[in-house]
């Protein structure tokens, strides 16, 4: 029973990472009907940049710098890979360019940080605390709290600030938003910045409990993509539920079947998505309204 609780808790914490990345997919989809397929690499960059800053700043002071880096990285992705496709209302240009940028980021990271997995020092004690007989890492609570806080902060930004309202207005009706004096291409850039920021933050949240390195993001990005499609590209609650379900089923598979099978539920989910909506992923719903 205690093992079960343990699996559930760590499933929830990794599930919240999936949810955070999927939430990032939603942010760009809302304003531009496009997705950043390099989202996993945005997470990876957040983690490795955070790792390099750790000796200088320590974990907590490193966070705002990584958030700022994530914002900037998102701006680069949007300006280089997406802006032109959106302006031309091109349906698929952005797919290739965001994938390509992701590959480039990965290669750059391999050159700077090497190909081997690195150990990210944990900001919290690495001895598990015992709750109801279950051994739980303090970092797993931090992941849960951090991911929720990030999503809440973005939500609050959207609801309370004039720029956040402009983001929602652009998501509602981009042409009408333009009539309000809202520079909608700029809002799309902003949503890419916020999307990469959430991914970079997820990177430094998960890094202490996993192996850190240039290759860490790809699988996470793919699984979170499946979560985003299943959970819905517009529902915040959907990706939280979807992420947690995936996280828990991975932990259960890994423990009760074999560690090697831990990735199976996620890949299965991805195949399921492709089977149910083979062209529907960015099919009708993604076509930009004229």
């Amino acid at each position, binding site marked *: 029973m205690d093992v079960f609780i343990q699996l559930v808790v760590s499933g929830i914490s990794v599930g919240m990472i999936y949810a955070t990345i999927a939430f990032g997919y939603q942010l760009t989809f809302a304003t531009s009907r496009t997705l950043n397929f390099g989202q996993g690499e945005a997470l990876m960059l957040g983690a490795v940049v955070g790792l390099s800053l750790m000796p200088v700043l320590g974990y907590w002071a490193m966070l705002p710098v990584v958030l700022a880096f994530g914002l900037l990285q998102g701006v680069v992705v949007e300006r280089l890979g997406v802006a032109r496709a959106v302006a031309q209302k091109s349906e698929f240009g952005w797919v290739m360019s965001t994938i390509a940028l992701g590959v480039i980021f990965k290669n750059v990271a391999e050159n700077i940080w090497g190909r081997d997995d690195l150990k990210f020092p944990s900001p919290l004690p690495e001895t598990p605390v015992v709750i109801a007989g279950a051994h739980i890492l303090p970092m797993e609570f931090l992941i849960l709290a951090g991911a929720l806080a990030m999503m809440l902060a973005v939500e609050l930004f959207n609801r309370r600030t*004039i*720029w956040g*309202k*402009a983001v*929602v*207005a652009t*998501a*509602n*009706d981009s*042409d*009408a*938003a*333009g*009539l*309000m*004096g*809202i*520079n*909608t291409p700029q809002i799309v850039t902003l949503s890419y910045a916020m999307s990469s920021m959430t991914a970079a933050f997820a990177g430094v949240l998960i890094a202490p409990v996993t192996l850190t390195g240039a290759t860490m993001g790809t699988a996470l990005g793919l699984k979170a993509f499946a979560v985003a499609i299943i959970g819905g590209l517009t529902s915040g609650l959907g990706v939280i539920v979807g992420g947690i379900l995936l996280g828990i089923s991975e932990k259960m598979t890994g423990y009760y079947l074999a560690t090697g099978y831990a990735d199976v539920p996620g890949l299965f989910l991805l195949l399921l998505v492709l089977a149910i909506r083979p062209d529907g992923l960015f099919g009708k719903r993604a076509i930009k309204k004229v």
Partner: protein
Amino acid sequence: MLKITGLQAGYGKVLVLHGLDLVVPRGNLVTLIGSNGAGKTTTLRAISGMIKPQAGQVFLDDQDIAGKPSHKIARAGLAHSPEGRRVFATLSVEDNLTLGAFSRLIGVRAKGDVSADLDRAFVMFPRLAERRKQLAGTLSGGEQQMLAIGRALMLNPSVLLLDEPSMGLAPLLVAEVFRAIANLKAQSITMLLVEQFAAAALEVADYAYVLENGRITISGKAADLKNDPAVKAAYLGGH
């Protein structure tokens, strides 16, 4: 003041407007009438930058705004309440109105007193005041129309474009919308009004243009056009 010369615009390769000349003097209410598909909405879209004109000039006061992106045109002081209302469905009434003042709030247009203007909008449309926190998507058609007009006014515009503010409304609400328009006119707001109800539009306007197949065919003082036999036959039900 709004002054348009030789305006050509359309969609893709299809030209809809074949060289339009039109003036809305400061403080005047000018109406543009014409049958379905004549190009009225296209005219307003080409003015406000929702579509790019292929030729011609659009002067807002003395600045040529033709071909600029819509957000720049809005920031220069032109407000457009578009066909079909286009309110932000998932935002509250109050947020919709606030977004009308976006350019003022981010400091790219003279700020003035935004909260006083918000109060004024609620005085002008009391139905909206009762529904301040309601999501715009859940408003009735008439309420959405008032919201669209109120939102456009929040820009503190020097020129206001209204595209069929009475579309789809019950007669009682149509009368209410026209009262609001007369009220704006009394405040000397410069307006270009596109309307289905040509009779009502000619009643409230100073000047009128008739658009047919993308060309102005008749223009003159609204009071004169009301009695013009051709206008009567085509747009006023022959009365």
